[in-house]
């Protein structure tokens, strides 16, 4: 009689459609609070628009507007200039969950699983009972197709309430979707405007316009005309692939032999490598994939891990790139006037569970950023800002586990989120981002991803530290410079007038105070040219003759603008100047123009010196060992330990630095 019970149970088990499942578990999609719902809805729409534009290589122009219907209800409109959607696909795109080509593709994209816009429409439908309206026009079409749509949640199928062709003459092509949803509009750290602002940072090729419920218009203009490279689709990479995925692939493969299966269904496996894997797994090359048991699949997995396989190619990923990260940050952060943008770091692609990924990091420092608070962390996954669940994200963990004290930020005990006037941007791009949940709010702590983030953070941190060191050195030298340039000459003039004698020759005094060659550089930008000035002040008692070197962006140096012809320019634009003799207390200026670069591409010149004792130089480092100047004959002088002239050693402590408060008063 056991079968009767089983049959009864089977009767009551009915299929739950995906839509129904999500209706009951909407927090999985991130619609778990009114504030968040609104952000999520807009995010899904904007992600889709950006993906569509990118695929069609169109510079995105996206408009988002929010209208307040009543206390709870909002009307949301997202419009793009993308390629449009063919009329027959529209019902499925907007009315069916998990529909779309991307779900099956191994390629970096924002939406990644195509659950977005239809889930949003469904959420709107559940909370307001109102249908959504979608309109789309493809290039060359005379009119746009417009539909009013609701989703049959039981069948996961679209229901079209109205369909029309409408003129949309102001648009050559594009898509617009309007829906109603319950939510709450706020501003601040987790808000629609912040989401759009961060989106603008990592999508500098897009123009985003936002009209808030009060009708106020915000425009994040495009900072570059350069489209991000289109990410190519690739097959799964075998490194770190999971058993389940492998068995699925075995089940669906059309290949008849193991060696062909490996060779054709995976990324980066040649025939030779495929044979090696078969060998390492102890499985015959001719094994039919469909005959592989669970145990032999495990064997195969083991075999894969033993064989060295080339890293996946880069073109399946679309990094933002160092120069565009800098551009995006500068464009959006201009109002806080940061003093320093650390050169962004893009790491080489690596693989996690068969999926290529890469990490990019940028750091912004100073300006009006608050210095007494934790640094601001901007997290991005495939160019999409992550606003929620910061604490659960691998990005945060990597930041917390980095000792930022080494890089000039405050951090109690050398771990935790550091304090200081800084923004840390981390972008993880992957064909599959391992999110902690379907709401895609935090990236899971995969060790190799965390390690890559750490390495990128450290590289970026080192640039920050270099900058801070340089700044500190400059402040120190600036005060000395003021003494020799301003105060001592005034003192000489004044006392000469008092005693009625001529103004004395100050060389002796000035060189005793400074006793260095001081090198100061400045960069100004005007009309497409960077003007670089390197001032060399000889404040040593003797004349000096030496070389200065610098590395410039490739092809940027305008030879005609050099006031002193370089002695040599090596590959990678390593430039060397032989300076003329500079007499004691005299100054020499080297100036040149750089052309053809964005204003933000060059802000500080790193100057190196050779042919002079580096301890006699302030403001430039000795030539590094790897400079590799062939055929040029110069000797690098080792720094002697002590250089202070004994003559100047004072017995008395500094009167003005006794550091004691002389006042007895409170």
């Amino acid at each position: 009689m056991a079968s009767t019970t089983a049959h009864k149970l089977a009767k009551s088990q009915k299929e739950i459609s995906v839509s129904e499942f999500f209706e009951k578990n909407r927090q999985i999609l991130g619609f778990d609070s009114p504030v968040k719902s609104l952000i999520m809805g807009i995010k899904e729409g904007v992600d889709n628009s950006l993906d569509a534009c990118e695929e069609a290589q169109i510079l995105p122009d996206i408009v988002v507007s929010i209208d307040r219907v009543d206390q709870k209800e909002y009307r949301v409109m997202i419009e793009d200039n993308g390629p449009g959607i063919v009329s027959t696909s529209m019902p499925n795109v907007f009315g069916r969950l998990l529909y779309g080509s991307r779900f099956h593709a191994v390629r970096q994209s924002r939406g990644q699983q195509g659950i977005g816009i239809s889930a949003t429409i469904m959420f709107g439908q559940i909370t307001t009972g109102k249908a959504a309206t979608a309109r789309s026009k493809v290039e060359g079409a005379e009119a746009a197709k417009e539909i009013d749509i609701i989703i049959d949640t039981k069948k996961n199928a679209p229901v079209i309430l109205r369909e029309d062709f409408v003129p949309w003459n102001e648009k050559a092509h594009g898509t617009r979707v309007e829906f109603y949803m319950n939510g709450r509009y706020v501003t601040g750290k987790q808000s629609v405007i912040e989401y759009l602002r961060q989106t603008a940072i990592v999508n500098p090729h897009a123009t985003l316009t936002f009209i808030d419920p009060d009708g106020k218009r915000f425009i994040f203009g495009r900072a570059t005309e350069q489209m991000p490279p289109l990410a190519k689709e690739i097959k799964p990479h075998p490194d770190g692939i999971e058993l389940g995925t492998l068995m699925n692939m075995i089940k669906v493969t059309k290949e008849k032999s193991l060696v062909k299966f490996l060779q054709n269904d995976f990324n980066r496996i040649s025939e030779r490598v495929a044979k090696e894997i078969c060998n390492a797994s102890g499985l015959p090359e001719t094994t039919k994939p469909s005959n592989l048991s669970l145990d032999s699949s495990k064997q195969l997995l083991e075999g894969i891990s033993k064989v060295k396989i080339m890293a996946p190619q880069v073109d399946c990923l679309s990094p933002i790139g160092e120069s565009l990260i800098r551009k995006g940050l500068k464009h959006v952060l201009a109002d806080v006037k940061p003093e320093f943008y650390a050169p962004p770091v893009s790491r080489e692609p690596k693989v996690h569970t068969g999926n290529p990924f890469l990490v990019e990091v940028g750091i912004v420092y100073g300006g009006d950023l608050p210095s007494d608070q934790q640094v601001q962390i901007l997290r991005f996954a495939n160019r999409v800002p992550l606003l929620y669940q910061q604490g659960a994200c691998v990005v945060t963990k990597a930041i917390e586990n980095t000792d930022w004290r080494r890089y000039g930020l405050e951090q109690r005990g050398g771990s935790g989120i550091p304090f200081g006037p800084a923004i840390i941007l981390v972008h993880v791009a992957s064909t599959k981002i391992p999110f902690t949940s379907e709401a895609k709010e935090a990236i899971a702590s995969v060790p190799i991803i965390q390690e890559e983030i750490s390495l990128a953070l450290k590289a970026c941190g080192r640039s920050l530290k270099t900058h801070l060191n340089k700044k500190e050195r400059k402040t120190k030298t600036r005060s000395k410079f003021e003494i020799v340039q301003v105060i001592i000459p005034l003192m000489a003039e004044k006392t000469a007038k008092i005693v009625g004698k001529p103004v004395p020759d100050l060389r002796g005094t000035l060189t005793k105070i400074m006793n260095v060659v001081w090198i100061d550089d400045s960069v100004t930008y005007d009309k497409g040219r960077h003007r670089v000035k390197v001032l060399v002040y000889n404040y040593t008692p003797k004349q000096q003759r030496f070389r200065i070197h610098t590395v410039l962006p490739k092809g940027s140096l305008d030879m005609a603008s050099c006031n002193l012809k370089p002695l040599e320019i090596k590959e990678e634009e390593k430039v060397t100047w032989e300076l003329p003799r500079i007499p004691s207390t005299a100054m020499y200026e080297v100036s040149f123009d750089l052309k053809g670069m964005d204003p933000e591409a060059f802000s500080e010149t790193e100057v190196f010196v050779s042919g002079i004792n580096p301890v006699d130089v302030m403001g430039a480092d000795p030539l590094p060992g790897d400079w590799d100047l062939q055929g040029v004959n110069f000797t690098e002088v080792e720094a002697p330990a002590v250089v202070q002239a004994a003559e100047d050693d004072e017995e008395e402590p500094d009167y003005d630095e006794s550091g004691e408060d002389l006042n007895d008063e409170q």
Partner: protein
Amino acid sequence: MMSNKRNTDAIKRLYSISESIYNQLDEGKVPKMVLPLRTKANIKFDTRSNVWKYGNLKGARSAKKVKGALMLLRTSYMLELIQEMIETNKSSTLREAYYISEGWGRAKFHSQDESNMLAEDLEIVTQCLREDFKLRPEEDGARVIGDINLVETDRKGKQKKLNCRDDVGDSGYGIPYNVEKEKLDLKDTSAKFVIAIETGGMFDRLVENGFDENFDAVLVHLKGQPARSTRRFVKRLNEDLHLPVIVFTDGDPWSFRIYASIAYGAIKTAHLSEYLATPSAEYIGITASDIENYDLPTDKLTDMDVRALNAELKDPRFNTDFWKGEIDLMLKLGRKAEQQALAKYGLNFVTDTYLPDKLSEFGLIRK
């Protein structure tokens, strides 16, 4: 203020500073000026005069640092200013000197502390007084009530005889910034002692209660940390009129320092201790023991108070059994008390009980 020989002496000495800077520049040296260090580690008890003066530790003000270079530059500007004031028979307040520096370009003072500090530095180096530089402090309004007959030469050069009890109102005789003999001639007194009081409230209490007449006392209001002229005036009462001096302050670390600057000499003006300090002055209270003995209402010591007390434990001037005991006790109690806390026992308690008790301990009155 008329210019006199002291002024021209001061000019000569200031001139030699500028000359020295010029010569150092001319010889290719880094200009510097050596001064005694004005720190508590460098004040030494002078057994001849019984006050604390600067010791032998020297510091150099050198043009190697911006701060030192600016101070050296300002010295020459100061010389010019002082020279001009002497020639035109003018004088300026310290505050005016600070504002005059607005016209000095890079050499201008950034705060009045800086200009006051430089004036003191110059006093030390030249061994002159700032009055010799034609610089004077603001009137600070410290006042006196008591039976003293004196003759003051007023601003018009007229000699005014007055009695500091009978010829003044309830606010007393205002102590001028110059209390030297040529300005102020102390004639005679019937008083038996001087009581120097920190707060205006307590001064007024003693005046209202007729303490000066009842106990033959001269009341001096210190007005917090006393100005130079107040300290000099007290010293002259002590030396010229042979009056013992009693100091009556709040019971907190800052008040202990008020007493120290009267009796021992202040760290900041240790170059003038011999001229300003009254070594025989006695501290009457409020002591930490008073807080316990009289069960006075108190306030909790702030962090700054505690730091000040600990600093005093390292201050050579407080290195006596009495002070060590009082400071340790106050730290132990963690409390401080105001003079006016005595009002807990009524308005007359201070004049009827507290002071008479304490004064008889010093043998100044017989109960």
